[in-house]
């Protein structure tokens, strides 16, 4: 076990609606991780809110599964709203 495990940092920008992943850092616990996140990632007035999440709490997809997971979606262009022609008299949707 390391004394300073890895944390993932998410910042909600001033004009953004959602928290966005911005990087990672090392810290001994959640409080220090939040402080370090503030010091590392919000120095240029970027943030309204910051989250830190222990990196080991994240379950990630296996890169080897990429074909199985993501390729089937490639051929299904009808899932994009732009695939459909909207009749003129429908107006703005």
């Amino acid at each position: 076990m390391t004394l300073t495990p890895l944390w993932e940092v998410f910042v909600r920008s001033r004009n953004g609606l959602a928290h966005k992943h911005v990087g990672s850092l090392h810290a001994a616990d959640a409080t220090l991780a939040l402080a370090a996140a503030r010091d590392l990632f919000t120095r240029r007035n970027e943030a309204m809110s910051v989250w830190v999440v222990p990196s080991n709490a994240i379950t990630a997809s296996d890169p080897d599964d990429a074909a199985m997971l993501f390729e089937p979606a490639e051929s299904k262009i009808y899932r994009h709203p732009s695939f459909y022609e909207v009749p003129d008299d429908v107006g703005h949707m």
Partner: protein
Amino acid sequence: MATTSIAVVDDRLFAAVLARADDALILGHRLSEWCGHAPMLEEDLALANIALDLIGQARLLYEYAATIENAGHTEDDYAYRRDPHQFRNILLVEQPNGDFAHTIIRQYLYSAFAHAFWQAMTSSADAALAAIAAKSVPESAYHLRHAAEWTIRLGDGTEESHRRAQDALDALFPYTGEMFAIPETETDLIVGGILADPATIRPAWTASLDRILAEAGLAKPQSTWMQSGGRRGRHSEHLGHLLAEMQILPRSYPGAIW
């Protein structure tokens, strides 16, 4: 051609503002010495951020001091063209960084005072000082939280971190008396509501120490003997070395820019 030192006027408000500017500048410079040397990258940035906040506070105070003095001096003149005996910072802030525990304990002892001081100064009768205080409060609040959290973790961490934190506290505690001492020249400023009365700040400082040191498992030194002299320009040997490094470039190459 080397620059000569400047002489400054003898004015009570000017001296009081200059003293607080010196506190912020010298502590800020000390913290900047960690840049590239901190135990971890995250703290390297944290200490540099705090250093920049403090130097920013010093600049505002020097700027105001220059207005009061009205002798054509600039913030740079005060920072770079005064000799050690002309600095009025408290001795605590010039103490060497030592190990990380020394730096954190020094920062905690100062921030617990500075935060309460700036909070009180937001209602100063002097509008310029009240404005500088209003800008400084959110900064000092973060400095205090940062140093307090680290104090707890060092004190309540490993056997070694506890020992180092306690050593630092024992070594630095005698330098805390100066924060609450009232130079004769400041009595009128306190009565006039321009400067915060240290007596009204002490309860907040003591309450913070009692809570944080208890949580950290650190023993508050019982000795009541206190160092003094900084506000009169009588400094420890450390200030001269600090200034030598801080001032050498502008003194050797006056007006140098990059």
